[in-house]
């Protein structure tokens, strides 16, 4: 991990610890929780897009899978929550492998296509066979570990942001390792990468599995925090929302996932006044970012900052 990132993580940690002490407003903390959940899903997609050069349109599928599997295991089978969360992640990553092997063996956009189909299938399955069908189900046990049950908003805030920091550390380590360089290489030229002995298929599969792990973990945390699930939150729309988070935040820097999540989660609150044109505004922002701010916010700021230092 580079020095700048280590410092960044340190400050993020400090911030997370003290934020709920300063801001005691439960509403803002709840917003913080949802930012965290979205950021976790986006982080996986960011590595997949920015480093493996692949796009997934089915992150909502993994997110939903994580949420439902963990909720069902803990509610219907009475498994302890951490174990059901773990199994849900395992399930998601297993499915990711099954999905990735055939589609990543092919070149081009086949992962985009396969994940799009996968996401929709999960949505249909949740609708047809999920507990409660389209109406959803509640009474999911809250998160508990070693006999201690998390109840307050602050506790969930800490829980989710703890996972973010862990995931962030892992991701940053990975990116700054030799493997990370190989991943960047794949993004720039697959042709050159293979001739250097980089097994691009294997690396891409691993990154895809990583993204599914982050998404399913986020889903499981969501399930045990809200304690109610219905299929509507796990549709193609959510996959595209996460795509927006990554694009706006900047896919070549995983801090972008957090920045993007903050923007996308808070945006609806700001747009409350524009209710009839909110979709339009989403579209405009996304188009604008893709055309004129391709790098996204975080890399853009880093660039500006570096330029200033040079002066």
């Amino acid at each position, binding site marked *: 991990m580079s020095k700048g990132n280590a410092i960044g993580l340190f400050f993020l940690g400090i911030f997370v610890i003290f934020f709920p002490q300063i801001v005691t407003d439960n509403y803002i903390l709840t917003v913080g929780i949802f930012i965290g959940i979205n950021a976790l899903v986006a982080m996986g997609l960011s590595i997949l*897009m920015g480093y493996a*050069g*692949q*796009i997934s349109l089915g992150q909502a599928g993994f997110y939903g899978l994580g949420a439902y599997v963990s909720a069902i295991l803990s509610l219907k089978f009475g498994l302890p929550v951490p174990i059901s969360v773990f199994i849900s992640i395992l399930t998601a990553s297993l499915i990711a492998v099954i999905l990735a092997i*055939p*589609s990543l063996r*092919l*070149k*081009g*956009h*086949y992962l*985009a*296509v*396969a994940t*799009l*189909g*996968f996401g*929709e*299938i999960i949505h*249909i*399955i949740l609708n*047809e066979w999920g507990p409660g069908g389209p109406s959803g189900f509640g009474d999911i046990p809250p998160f508990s570990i070693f006999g201690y049950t998390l109840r307050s908003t602050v506790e969930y805030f800490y829980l989710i942001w703890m996972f973010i920091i862990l995931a962030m550390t892992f991701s940053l380590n990975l990116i700054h390792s030799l493997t990370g360089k190989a991943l960047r290489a794949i*993004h*720039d*030229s*697959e*042709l050159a990468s*293979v001739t250097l002995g980089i097994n691009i298929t294997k690396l891409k599969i691993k990154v895809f599995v990583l993204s599914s792990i982050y998404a399913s973990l986020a889903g499981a945390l969501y399930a045990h925090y809200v304690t109610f699930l219905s299929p509507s939150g796990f549709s*193609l729309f959510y996959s*595209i929302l996460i*795509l927006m988070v990554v*694009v706006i935040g900047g896919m070549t820097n995983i801090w972008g996932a957090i920045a993007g999540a903050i923007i996308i989660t808070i945006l609806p609150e700001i747009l409350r006044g524009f209710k*009839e*044109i*909110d*979709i*339009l*505004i*989403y*579209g*405009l922002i*996304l*188009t604008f970012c*893709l*055309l004129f701010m*391709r790098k996204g916010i975080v890399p853009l700021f880093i660039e500006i900052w570096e330029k200033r230092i040079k002066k």
Partner: protein
Amino acid sequence: MTLFLQFLFAGLTTGSVYALVGIGFNIIYNSTSIINLAQGEFVVLGGLMMWFFLHSLQLPFSVSLCLTLLTAAIIGLIQERLTIKPLLKKGDLLLMIMVTIAFSILIRGILMFKFGKDPYTYAPFTEGEPIEIFGAIITQQTLWVIGITALCIVLLYLFFNKTMTGRAMKACSLDMKAARLMGINVSKVVMLSFLISAVIGAIGGIAITPISLMEYDKGAMLSVKGFCAAIMGGLGKSRGAVVGGFTLGMLESLTAGYIHSGLKDAIALLIMLFILFVKPAGIFGKTEILRLRKF
């Protein structure tokens, strides 16, 4: 038998629209390797604009038709010039797929702003009683939908095989570099492919709206289904999309009819994934070595 025939007709109706969307995907894919995920939005655009000209402005049918197609063509043009052209040079396909998603959200936003969330419909092209064939019933509008789709297919075939421009576009799809060397204006071809795809989508929307109503957010579903059709037939093969579209419509209808209606969407997607994994070049295509792409 009657039952089977009835399911078949239902499959043909939805299959027609899937086929038209699928063809749109292919035309653009061939000239740019982009998957234009805004394709379904043009179907919605067609239906809603047709309603607008017919009912809001009270224009005659033929005028409304022309104006609707013109609108779709212009929007298609705008999409290409504004969002695709600046990115095409960069050659970043990932970015271009995303920008089509962004554009689809944009169109959806504009349509919602203009039309709200209500569904719209207008009278079928010809008034009259449904027709009975061996006990199965088929409405006149359904015949229109199928007929118009067939007409589109024939016209496109003639265009791509008999006209200079069409041939140039075909050449482009085979080998863009070679086409450029041969003096074909690739930029124009790309523009034209977006324009044609937009118009084809709109035609589908105009034809289907009297049967199925149209509302601002129907496009995403149509994009996904049309895309399934294109994949089933082999991405890039126009004939494939037609067969893929009708097969998909039929499969959905037969699944709903003989297995269960709750499963029909899942079946379509599962078949798509299956084809993707087992025979990525589509039902008819030969599996070729897909070249490493430079991102």
